[in-house]
């Protein structure tokens, strides 16, 4: 394999896996607090649209990223309000959020389907980026790729190195006990859901601001759902999200290159690979765990909390 192909494959993998890292690390924190939000797909598509619109009108990538982040947060607040204050079923509410987000973005984005924007470019550090192999692979990736890795680290740090992180995990494991010793379950969960929304929005924006310079109403193509799968694959451990996302990104890139190499399989069958791979990695995880129960599963995941006192 020649060097430039190798580099382009690795960069391709970072581009394909970053949206999943964002969305999955957000959902991981949400699930660690004991909430299952199936609205990731809906929040991502809203982020993708808002990022695109703001980039189109202002040309400022900072504002675009900020808008996607706030948009994801705003739409996740519907879920947060319904599940935390009105005690609705989390599965149903999450699905409603996805359907609503897809409808809303298709509606609001109808005037932008023909437009293109300027993509956010990879950084270039003089000297460092020019080192062969290491330069392009470590010092000249897209800024949002670095941000995604930082977010994974921050979530890990929050969960395991701060008092609030410990409280959040204890709420996810036993909300009644956490409530009994005086922690505000609803407030922690509300914040976690908003963070999940912001990260999903960022992941969506990566699709429209880095991957392709266009907007399409089906551009998330199930990535929100794959991100949900990654959280399970990662056994709710932050750094394993990166591993899962790279695996998935690798398959995506492999499939694109296979199409380029004129392998005699219809493009449709190759396009199935990422979805089938998600199923396969979930199965392989269960085989690896055998019959042991997964100790990192938040015990209260998906359960409704209502304090009577």
């Amino acid at each position, binding site marked *: 394999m020649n060097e430039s192909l190798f580099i382009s494959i690795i960069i391709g993998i970072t581009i394909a896996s970053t949206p999943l890292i964002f969305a999955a690390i957000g959902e991981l924190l949400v699930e660690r607090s004991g909430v299952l939000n199936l609205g990731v797909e809906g929040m991502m598509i809203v982020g993708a649209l808002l990022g695109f619109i703001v980039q189109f009108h202002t040309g400022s990538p900072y504002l675009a990223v900020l808008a996607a982040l706030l948009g994801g947060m705003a739409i996740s607040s519907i879920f947060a309000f319904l599940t935390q204050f009105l005690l609705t079923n989390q599965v149903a509410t999450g699905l409603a959020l996805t359907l609503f987000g897809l409808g809303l973005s298709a509606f609001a984005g109808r005037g932008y389907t023909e437009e293109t924007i300027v993509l956010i470019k990879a950084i270039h550090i003089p000297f460092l980026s020019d080192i062969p192999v290491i330069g392009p692979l470590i010092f000249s990736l897209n800024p949002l790729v670095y941000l995604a890795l930082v977010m994974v680290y921050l979530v890990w740090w929050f969960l395991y190195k701060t008092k609030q992180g410990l409280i959040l995990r204890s709420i996810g494991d036993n909300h009644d006990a956490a409530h009994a010793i005086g922690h505000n379950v609803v407030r922690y969960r509300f914040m976690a859901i908003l963070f999940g929304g912001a990260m999903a929005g960022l992941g969506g924006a990566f699709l429209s601001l880095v991957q392709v310079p266009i907007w399409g109403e089906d551009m998330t193509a199930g990535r929100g759902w794959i991100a949900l799968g990654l959280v399970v694959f990662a056994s709710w451990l932050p750094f394993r999200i990166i591993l899962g996302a790279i695996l998935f990104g690798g398959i995506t890139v492999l499939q694109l290159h296979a199409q380029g190499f004129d392998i005699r399989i219809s493009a449709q069958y190759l396009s199935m690979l990422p979805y089938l791979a998600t199923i396969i990695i979930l*199965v392989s995880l269960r085989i690896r765990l055998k019959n042991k129960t997964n100790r990192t599963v938040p015990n209260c995941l998906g359960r409704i909390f209502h304090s009577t006192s």
Partner: protein
Amino acid sequence: MIKLIPRVENSKAMILLSPLLALTLTAVSALIIFIFILDDIKVSSVFFTLFVLPLTDSYLFPELLVKAAPLMIIGLGLSIGFRAGIWNIGAEGQYVIGGIAGGAVGLYFYNVEGFWLLPLMALASIIGGMLYASIAAFLRIRYQVNEILVTLMLTYVAVLFLSAMLQGPLRNPAGFNFPESRIFHDSAMLPIIWEGTRLHIGFILAIILSLVAWFGIKKHMFGMQIKITGSAPRAAKFAGFNDNKTVLYSLLISGGLAGLAGFFEASGPAGQLTPGLPQFYGFTAIIVAFLARLHPIGIVFSSLLIALSYVGGEEVQIEYNLPSSITQIFQGMLLFYFLACDILIKYKVVLNKTKD
């Protein structure tokens, strides 16, 4: 401060009133949205086209029933699983596979006349949907893999498979390379029950199936079983509970019914296999099932209501050039309001005047 106090018993009045409240809130929100986005069109006329015209117009009303049939059938199947806490979210995939299976049988016997062809196609579609859903059942039972994710991933796979079939084996040989099948011959088309419209026998079957499901849940042991599994407190959703039969049967039933709905669409209004077969019915049926509180007779009404929003949405697109995605927004909103209003059943909302 607003406080929620649990009721001793679920409020009977609220069980009936909360859906009406949700509908009213959706209508009010729709009104507000229209006031914002419509500049030179009268809000009242858009409202009329969206919500009333589909019920009174002699062309639109049968179209409403055509759309209600697949929603009803898929919603029925899903409601059975949802009762037991089995979340088949990928009915859309089973619907597509059912449509391909039924359509492929019809195309295999192209130009062969026979009354047996339609039942055979229906059978193929049901088996197709069942087999496809059984993948998720197998993985859940054998490996405890969450069925939500598996059925969803398989939906994307099914849509790609449809596209591959339409560019390969099922493509119309005389179709100028368009990714479409031949148009089905008469023996492979569902009989029309309302002259001059597209309303086919599938609607009647959907009603019959609703009644069967109603009796089934009431009288049959399996109905009892899913009710109990659903109402018993479940621990972690992702870990799953161990009643393998419930998992298998509810996925087989919902998959088979979704497959049948795919066949109804292909052999009914579509009349051929096209990339347009997936109509989002599999996802919308989730809303249908919830709005009906998973009750089979309720599903008859909720599917008609959702079908109304579909037909109305298409009509405002044609008449006023408004995007039909507005339908999806209303459907999502309706489900939000509906879920929110349900709190009134289990809890009393009390205004707490004392400051704490």
